[in-house]
């Protein structure tokens, strides 16, 4: 702003606004005539108008020859994509989608619509098993009854599991005792065989150590038998 003031003072003329308005052709015809009259008398404004016009020509040398390719890819929101999809989808597909959405909704709520003998409905999570028909007619089942059925099923299942467990344990016990008896038999047989081998080794060792001559022993034993016979 101080620059503006300096210029204003230095020029000695306060027609800057009129000058630029005239320069850029935005002055009204009346204002143009007035300014043209003014510049016949004001040399400063006349000179500036010439110089600014020349400057404008110079400024036109800076042309925009090339424009770099600018790609703007705005991120599309889910809503935008949905709207776009809705716009391009044909009516029959929209209707089909609507019916499907209604069915899913009905299934979630476990709702069944009946018109006369026609029944329309869908069930998620096996909803029909809990609500079994009673005597051929559809009956609504209260929450207590559902709880009772569930408890009954649970206790039955527990009982079944227990029986299976007992049977498995009994079978295991039998297998174990049979295996045990077999093992005892085998061990005792091994022990007997070991003992016999050990006795045989001891006897052989004793014979070898004492250098016993069985033939002499037997002959001695034989001669002594004869003597006994003679004496008799």
């Amino acid at each position, binding site marked *: 702003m101080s620059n503006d003031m300096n210029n204003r003072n230095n020029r000695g003329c306060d027609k800057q*606004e009129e000058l630029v308005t005239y320069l850029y052709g935005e002055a009204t015809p009346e204002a143009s005539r007035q300014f043209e009259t003014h510049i016949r008398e004001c040399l400063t404004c006349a000179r*500036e108008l010439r110089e600014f016009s020349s*400057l404008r020509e110079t*400024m036109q*040398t800076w042309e*925009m020859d090339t424009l*770099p390719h600018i790609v703007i890819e705005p991120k599309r929101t889910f809503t935008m994509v949905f709207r776009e999809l809705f716009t391009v989808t044909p009516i029959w597909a929209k209707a089909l989608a609507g019916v499907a959405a209604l069915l899913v909704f009905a299934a979630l709520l476990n709702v069944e619509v009946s018109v006369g003998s026609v029944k329309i409905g869908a069930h998620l999570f096996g909803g029909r098993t809990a609500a079994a028909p009673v005597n051929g007619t559809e009956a609504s089942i209260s929450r207590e009854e559902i709880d009772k059925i569930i408890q009954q099923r649970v206790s039955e299942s527990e009982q079944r599991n227990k029986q299976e467990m007992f049977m498995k344990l009994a079978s295991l016990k039998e297998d174990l005792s049979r295996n045990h008896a077999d093992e005892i038999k085998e061990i005792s047989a091994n022990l007997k065989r070991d003992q016999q081998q050990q006795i045989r080794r001891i006897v052989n060792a004793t014979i070898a150590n004492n250098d016993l001559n069985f033939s002499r022993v037997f002959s001695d034993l034989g001669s002594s038998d004869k003597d006994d016979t003679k004496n008799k």
Partner: protein
Amino acid sequence: MAEQRQITDDQLIERTLAGEGDAFGILVRRWERQIFGLALRVLGHEETARDVCQETFLSAFRNLSKFRGDAQFSSWLYRITLNQCNTHLRRTEAKANVSLDEQLESGAPEPASSAECADDAINREQMTKHLRRALAAIPVEMRQVIIMKEYEGLKFHEIAEILDLPVSTIKTRLYTGLTQLRRRLEHVRGSA
């Protein structure tokens, strides 16, 4: 293409807000040249101008729902561009702020040689170079007004609307800016 030209900016905005992604693409193609030109002339650097251009359109897209129809879309877009330019200039203030003395020393608009005078293209190129340097050296508020007036061809009241300033201030800034630009270029233009 002819059909696209018939569609107004406001209609394209409505379509964009209704979820038609291509509508904004038409707006971008319609205004990218002006926006890039403004950014390039204000900033004097092509890469930065390209970034500013991208940011301007992205910002416009994000805030499109806030755009009120009481102003022209182009004015709103120009305002976003200038704000983006100012942000960039503030970030690189030290580099961008070239003093006149510095410019005269380094920029050194030397008198054109006789060979250059003979070749109009080279002369023109030289002049553009000096002009860009001189424009970069004048205060940004004056530079913006000169560019919007001279290169974008906007009316005084449109510039006033974009910058949210009185028309008289715009005219004063233009006058002062032109005076400074003439002073910075007078020896170059005198020799050319």
